């Protein structure tokens, strides 16, 4: 952007010891000085973009859930609660709702335990800490669809390395058909989600641990607190806000994830492992019933409302503290 103010050449060859007297244009305030206007100009496009392509679609999602919209046709009419009345008694929907809940709660609990454990150990000054962190980060970096594929192969009905290992160790008598049995399939799905989310949580918790002031910890050591007391009474309470951030991300990503279930089981066997996301995809995109798909997806909204509320609370607290 051309600035008349900053780049004006000196008038004539002023002797060095004399102050430069800039022209009148330099003196007055220009747009480049107006912070209020600049702020609006710089923020405006982004706000508009986000409102247009996230806010409006979000509202559209709600409207669609009350409509009979179908893929391929642009016109639709509102049908009131028909979509909801259709899915509410649907056992497949119940199953998906329950699976989503189970998946989210169990995997996040496991993630939290694994992440805190590894973060605390790594923070205790393990040799090779950087290398271990790199390895731990691998699952988070890999595109989720490719990782899911690797797990499909790992859980393969004929060639599963897990089955081979369990058998070789003498732990398995029968055969595990990972994607043939609803309970085993859910176990596999949860395993993949834990595997994918815990590295990220570890890094966040690790950052939280290193942000705990050293003198607080040293004071605890001087006071004679042992490892466990230090962990439970100093580290963990101070970690809480950071852990909440990790859990919020985990809950959001896990409860709304479509790719893992889609690639591992695609809802099978017998539609027993659908989660809300895959069911919405199946009904809305594959089945063409956009209205019902949107209605199914809308049941994720409460989760997001809770996450948003906690986020806001957390932000407000730090705003006061800052």
């Amino acid at each position: 952007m051309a600035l008349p103010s900053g780049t004006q050449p000196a008038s004539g060859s002023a002797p060095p010891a004399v102050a430069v007297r800039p022209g009148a244009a330099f003196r007055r305030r220009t747009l480049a000085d107006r912070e209020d206007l600049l702020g609006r100009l710089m923020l405006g496009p982004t706000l508009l973009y986000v409102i247009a392509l996230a806010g409006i679609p979000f509202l559209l999602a709600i409207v669609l859930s009350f409509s009979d919209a179908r893929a391929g046709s642009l016109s639709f009419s509102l049908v009131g609660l028909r979509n909801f009345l259709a899915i509410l008694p649907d056992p497949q929907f119940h199953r998906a709702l329950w699976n989503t809940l189970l998946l989210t709660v169990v995997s996040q609990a496991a993630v939290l335990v694994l992440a805190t454990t590894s973060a605390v150990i790594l923070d205790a000054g393990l040799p090779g800490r950087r290398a271990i962190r790199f390895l731990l980060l691998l699952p988070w970096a890999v595109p989720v669809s490719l990782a899911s594929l690797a797990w499909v192969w790992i859980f393969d009905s004929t060639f599963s390395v897990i089955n081979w290992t369990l058998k070789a160790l003498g732990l398995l008598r029968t055969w595990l058909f990972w994607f043939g049995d609803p309970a085993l399939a859910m176990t596999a799905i949860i395993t993949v989600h834990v595997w994918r989310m815990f590295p990220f949580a570890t890094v966040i918790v690790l950052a939280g641990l290193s942000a705990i002031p050293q003198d607080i910890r040293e004071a605890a050591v001087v006071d004679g607190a042992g490892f466990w007391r230090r962990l439970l009474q100093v580290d963990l309470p101070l970690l809480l806000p950071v852990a909440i951030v990790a859990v919020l991300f985990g809950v959001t990503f896990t409860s709304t994830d479509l790719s893992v279930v889609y690639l591992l089981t695609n809802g099978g066997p017998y539609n027993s492992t659908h989660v809300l996301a895959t069911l919405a995809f199946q009904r809305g995109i594959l089945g063409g019933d956009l209205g019902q798909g949107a209605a199914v997806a809308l049941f994720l909204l409460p989760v997001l409302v809770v996450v948003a509320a906690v986020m806001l609370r957390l932000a407000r607290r730090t705003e006061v503290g800052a």
Partner: protein
Amino acid sequence: MRMRRARRVVVRAAQYAAIALITLFAVFPFYWMFLTALKQNRDLYVGATNLHHVPWVFNVPPTLEHVQLLFQRTAYLVWVRNTVFVGAVVVAITLVFAAPAGYALARLVGRWGERLGIALFLTYLVPPTLLFIPFARIVSVLHLQNSLWSLVVIYPTFTVPFCTWLLMGFFRSIPRDLEEQAMIDGYSRLAVIRKVVMPLAVSGLLTVVIFAFTLVMQEFVYALTFISSVQKMTLSLGVPVALVRGDVFYWGSLMAAALITSIPIAIVYNLFIDRFVAGLTHGALKG
């Protein structure tokens, strides 16, 4: 005293064991990708009931035939090109929107800036699952079905809020004194942004470029929804969807693709993760 020492050794050993197990859990699928990608088929497709054939190692010499197949007989390189194209355009769009917005939120819009910033960030949390159905309509209205441009339009909806939030944190970490000093030294606010803020925010901007790009590389749901022909696919869609033909899985090539795609991202991620986490948690860590 000795008791204490012994206990410390036991605790240490337990810690090592725990972290070793956890690390093993994290890297095992990658090891498995690696083995699968390089094994000959007769070493690969041996039923797991055969306890004499150990699947954890190469039983016959490794081969590059799966990798060759991937590069020569599949659209892998086309997907790489598509991904780089979408990634580059999306990163450019993201920077154009997020950098000014991040700065405005950090410095120019005052107290309600914080709240707007959080509101923006929350839209990042609105999941594809809720949005892909309305997006499907928008994409068909724009006649972008089965076009990479549909991804270019849609992907910034999550990269922009996220990167705006990250950049807001980076801009806040630049001392306010420096900007005020420059304003007194004869520069307008806009010139200050150009001559002082941007040079100091380079590493933050770079972090955002990296993460926007990796977010694009990892995206699966929208690509699955909007792209149907193999030649238009991105990596994360093409590999799991197009390399699988009916029930025929080319596991060697599939795993080669997964590994080759993942490793560069993993390395870049690792280089930038500290900045990334700092940006992400700057609210929670401050308190």
